[in-house]
């Protein structure tokens, strides 16, 4: 299925979860938060929430700022 992750197109096997995607991306899951289709997806749901065709995700972390 086709997803959009941080503004870029990405392919993922059907049925995969948010946790699977974060694993593929190789991010430190403790350092990120995920928004799915403009709604926050709490960490506790990452392993249970299966992604769907066309889902748009934002994977964010902390950076320096004022």
């Amino acid at each position, binding site marked *: 299925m086709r997803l959009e992750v941080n503004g870029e197109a990405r392919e993922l096997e059907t049925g995969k979860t948010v946790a699977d995607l974060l694993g593929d991306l190789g991010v430190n899951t403790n350092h990120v938060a995920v928004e799915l289709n403009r709604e926050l997806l709490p960490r506790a749901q990452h392993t249970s929430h299966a992604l769907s065709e066309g889902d748009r995700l934002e*994977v964010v972390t902390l950076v320096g700022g004022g």
Partner: protein
Amino acid sequence: MSTATLPPPTTTGTLRIGSHELKSRLIIGTGKYATHEQMGEALERSGADCITVAIRRERLIDAEGRNLLDAIDTSRYTLLPNTAGCFSADDAVRVARLGREILTGLENPGASWVKLEVLADTRTLLPDPIETVKATEQLVADGFEVLCYSSDDPIVARRLKNAGAASVMPAGSPIGSGQGILNPNNIRICLEYLKEGDPDYPVIVDAGVGAASDVAAAMELGVDGVLLNTAIAHATDPLAMADAMRHALIAGRLSYLSGRIPKRLYATASSPTEGVIALGR
């Protein structure tokens, strides 16, 4: 390290904002430093125990990029996540929730609050007062303690407090401009309005500081704290400037508490006018 010259932290009292009690009245931003090491050292020298951070997309390509969280001891600092880069209330609320999610995972006390920044314009980076009030209402309803970046307009400041802001943070001058406190009279009126019948309500000057004298000047007006970033990060010697800011904050706070003399148009002699020897021939 020059920490030997540090007065005890109780000298200037603690800064209470909502449920948080900070040991230092200086809040320092983590942006724009040349390296993470320089940032860490500057934060240390500033004496701050609260630092601001921004929320941005994880760089999924650049695997070598070090994460800010690898460079900061999150057990030592209370993080204050901002909504910088947002131009609408709705986007600011989304970013605030993302920040809370990350800080909750880190078990950092900063998970309960947010520095709300809803900008109107990329050239001035001035806040949009209407969207800021809207976002404040939404975030307060969602359980956040909201620290509102605002212009120095006393009326907007009062609106933000009435909307439930835990602190109003008027700008001394535009973000990163280094122009200092352009309108001290407006900051004075903000203080009057916000502290009327509520003297402990925290008011923080956020943005515009260029040099240590600006911090002292802000504190002498009676604000409770100062938030700054660029003035340290882009100083020629950021570490020495962090020292200067720490001292300026203490000097300004003590000066305010000590009660300055009134300004007069004419001179008053410091030496006795009596007992002067016979003058002239």
